[in-house]
């Protein structure tokens, strides 16, 4: 119900994907993908390895141009643009301000050669912040928000635990207050208790900030906890798309049924 009330408040989708195709030679990674993402909505993409989830995410976040189809997004001023029609400098600015990308491996999303504070401050400097004290103050606020000890602000990320690195990556992305965040397996590679904590944090942040998010995961529990809607992919195509609870409690497609029934019960 939560998702629906949000939709009513904003009548334009934040992101619209139309007939997106991407193949690598003869291998099709994504086939005819269509969906809308609304402001404040969290969409989870699930499916087995090789289903095209990560390729789809790369196409959405501007990393990889699709062969066919459109990725339309609504700007803050309400105008709609195709992500791959705008000039690249503009796309880069967009990705650093309005959007965020959280990688599965913190090494892909963080700069390991500079301190945690610099990692968080980088986006601020990219959009023109030139006051050291100001940058530091903002960075400290976000570190605190992500439950990273501010005393460790000047330490290098490799001295952090895996969970902390992942939280640092999230802080680095949220510092410019994006409206849309892409996450590729944000809890992959973390042990279960850290996973639970991170999920809890993510859930409260998404709620507080009104973030829209696309989360790629193969963990249905993550989807259940975070997502408003769920998209099931198989062999590059979307086989089922619906409200998370609906898809998980009453899967219609045989592959979704298989996926749901394969979850280990304790």
């Amino acid at each position: 119900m939560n998702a629906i009330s949000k939709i009513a408040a904003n009548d334009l989708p934040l992101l619209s994907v139309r007939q997106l195709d991407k193949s690598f030679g003869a291998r099709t990674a994504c086939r005819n993908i269509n969906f809308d993402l609304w402001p404040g909505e969290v969409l989870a993409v699930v499916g087995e390895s090789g289903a095209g989830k990560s390729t789809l995410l790369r196409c959405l976040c501007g990393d990889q141009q699709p062969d066919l189809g459109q990725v339309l997004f609504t700007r803050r001023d309400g105008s709609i643009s195709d992500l791959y029609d705008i000039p690249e400098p503009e796309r880069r600015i967009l990705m650093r301000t309005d959007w965020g990308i959280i990688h599965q491996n913190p090494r892909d999303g963080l700069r390991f050669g500079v301190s945690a504070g610099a990692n968080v401050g980088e986006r601020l400097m990219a959009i023109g912040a030139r006051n050291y004290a100001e940058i530091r103050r903002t960075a400290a606020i976000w570190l605190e928000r992500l439950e990273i000890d501010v005393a460790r602000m000047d330490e290098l990320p490799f001295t952090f635990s895996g969970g902390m690195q992942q939280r640092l990556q999230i802080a680095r992305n949220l510092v410019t207050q994006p409206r849309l965040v892409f996450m590729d397996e944000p809890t992959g590679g973390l042990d279960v208790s850290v996973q639970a904590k991170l999920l809890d944090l993510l859930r409260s942040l998404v709620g507080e900030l009104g973030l829209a998010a696309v989360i790629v995961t193969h963990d249905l529990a993550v989807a259940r906890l975070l997502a408003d809607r769920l998209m099931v992919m198989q062999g590059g195509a979307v086989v089922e798309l619906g409200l998370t609870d609906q898809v998980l409690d009453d899967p219609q497609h045989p592959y979704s049924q298989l996926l749901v029934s394969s979850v280990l019960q304790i």
Partner: protein
Amino acid sequence: MTAGYNFAYLDEQTKRMIRRAILKAVAIPGYQVPFGSREMPLPYGWGTGGIQVTASIIGSDDVLKVIDQGADDTTNAISIRRFFAKTAGVATTTRTADATIIQTRHRIPETPLRAGQIVVFQVPIPEPLRWLEPRESETRQMHAYADYAIMHVKLYEDIARYGHIATTYDYPVIVNERYLMRPSPIPKFDNPKLDMNPALMLFGAGREKRIYAVPPYTIVKSLDFEDHPFSIETWDTSCALCGATNAFLDEVITDDHGGKMFVCSDSDHCAERKEKAA
């Protein structure tokens, strides 16, 4: 001039190619122009880029000065000066005011330059973004889009670690309010001299095969933060030889018992001051 060499060592076609690169570099201040760097009779890191730039701009009526670490009497400076005396038969000098071309490593002379003079810098690593971005394809895009945020990350990191901007040489600058440039390993003391200088500044990197330029009277701004503004080095002492208080000083160890003295790094400037005082 020694027979058997073309004027200034390089063949005419090569000089022509380098001149074209230089023209392009002057047209786009701070932009790194690729060029077909030749093998020179000295090792990479000793000034192969600078020597090629000098060879392609020098004429028989030019007067050449070469400095290394500010001094005219260091090995590298002497051998490059002798190289051009031999292959181009040009006059050489140690006096900044008399020179038309000054090839340098590490310093810009203390004596103010005038219009018509050309300073040729030897550059080891031309790419200012290389420290954080190893991919050339990516750094080229960053230059194209003036996407220079990570340079400030470096300065941020300096302040976070040391309490002040600890970069003291090769201090990054923005040329003509557009291109980020590495001013070769000159001390940041010399950065203000780059700004609105009447002389033409050419930068040659032989191993990296890049030429870039700061034309006369170009705005060159050193990067900084509002609350940590750019500042140059200062010393508590004056030059032990000439008493200069506003020159870049080198610390020279004089014995094994901790004895040391501070002297001007620009040997010509120091000698001139001593002459005047005498």
